[in-house]
């Protein structure tokens, strides 16, 4: 019976280690070190290439301050539909032709940018 008195403490330590491990292994949401993002003033630029089902750079969260604009250039190796959720922007993608989306953050939240054929998530835009 006495041994079990210590159990809650052991659990706490274990849990702290678990959460600590989780937090250090996930990317810090506060910075937008997402690969390939170039900032100029209030405009951010990012080029994304799609080869089959592979997205380069790998899908990541891109931070976008309220009111700033993300210029997203997407080139795919097949015809597709490009869709920026919540920005209500949808464009046809032609194989090999770069398509530019201009996304301006108006409402805080997290928004997915994706293609439909096949369904791929390219990145999420975190507007804050």
């Amino acid at each position, binding site marked *: 019976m006495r041994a079990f008195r210590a159990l809650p*403490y052991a659990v706490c330590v274990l849990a702290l280690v678990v959460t600590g491990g989780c937090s250090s292994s996930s990317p810090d949401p506060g910075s937008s070190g997402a690969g390939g993002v170039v900032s100029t003033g209030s405009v951010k630029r990012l080029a994304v290439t799609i080869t089959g089902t592979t997205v380069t750079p790998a899908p990541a969260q891109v931070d976008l301050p309220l009111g700033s604009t993300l210029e997203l250039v997407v080139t795919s190796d097949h015809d597709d539909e490009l869709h920026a959720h919540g920005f209500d922007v949808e464009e046809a993608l032609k194989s090999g032709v770069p398509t530019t989306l201009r996304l301006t953050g108006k409402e805080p*939240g997290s928004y997915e940018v994706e293609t439909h054929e096949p369904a791929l998530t390219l990145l999420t835009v975190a507007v804050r």
Partner: protein
Amino acid sequence: MALTAPQLAPGLIPGLAPGLVPAHGVGSRGDLPLPFTALVIAAVAALVISFVAIGTLWREPRLRDTDGVLLPRPVAALLDSRSLRAVARALAAVLTVWTLVALVLGPDSARNPVPHVVYVWLWVGLAFSSMLLGPVWRVINPVRALHAGLLRLARVSPDLAALPYRWGLWPAALGLGTFTWVELVAENNTSLGFLQLLVGGFFAVSLLGSAVFGRTWFDHADPFEAWSRLLGLLSPLGRRHDGRWVLRTPLHGVNGLRGQRGLVPTVAVMLGGTAYDGFSANLSWSTFVQTSPVSSSLLKTATLLTFFGLVAVTIWLASVVSVRLSGEPFARSFTFVSDIAPSLIPIAGGYVVAHYWSLWVYQGQYAWRLLTDPLGTGADLLGTAGLVPNDALIQPTLVATIQAVSIVVGHLLGVLAAHERAITVLDRRAAVVGQVPLMVVMILYTLGGLTILFAP
């Protein structure tokens, strides 16, 4: 929540202004990841609550069905009045018919209101209104009303049944699991054809079930009645032992639920499904799914089932350890797991609030813009075509606070409910030790839930 695209992308339909039409049926906006500070504060709070609870909580069963603050007579009379119930039923019937019209005759595009009605109002809205008011679906369930109406037309007893019903909540668990799969995994789940099949199938199964087993079907087997009844236990409104309306703690409702067949799988689906919803929004997960050679539907289905299974297996393991610690036989774990399953309902409720708050308070308003034009003809029957959803309730700091607080409060209530149940059903000397395994599992769920909200 991520729902897949309808086949017709409305932005590409000539004649529709793309700026006004979201290309998906539901949920184009997600919440920002939980800030690290909120994660740490909530995790520490949950841990402190847990081990303070072990040492200091009451030692004798304390929650009684005679507890509660009586509601003033006029309020109680209003709640019991036939007219209030009739009005609620009529409104639900009107909304149902309206939705069915849009389902059959409306456009197959994001302008159709059906996905919002099904995935936001019915699923999420029902959860929130039940947690506030109690098991409201029992009162307004249009299929229940249809069944009762048909029996009345046929001039037979409302209790008419061909066979006795004996599966407890199992069919509800299956139904809730299926709905969760439809919502989170199925492709084209906002397309009209899919929704016609879904709603038509649900009506067919419900009418068949109630024809064979009578209205007991709705009390036990109906997934939405179970969803509303179990989350409704958390409502501060309730009836005490003599049937009078009282205000009481969510613990009283939860404690009043007895173990029954199928309760464990039902709770596992409620908790596992919400957790999977949050988890599947994680970018590393979607990257893994879309680059994997295995079909993504298969991968998602297997993962969703794993989430259900993980919840069921972990609470059963906890109950095995509990009964062994209290010196009872292994076989006792199967009844004990059912005894303690109700205490996971507050945790499930906390998950639901944390994950669906912004969907409900934001996308729930958006539904009015679509309902006003059920046939996609440009009509404005309700005058809500120009409604701009109010965003005051989805400000990031508010959302993060609500998420962290609801998870921690769910955890606190879960720990208290488990404690009360443990000292009630276990031998007194063993009760304190006996609840530790369950608390460990609850801590894992809570930390897991917080981590899911935190990871981008």
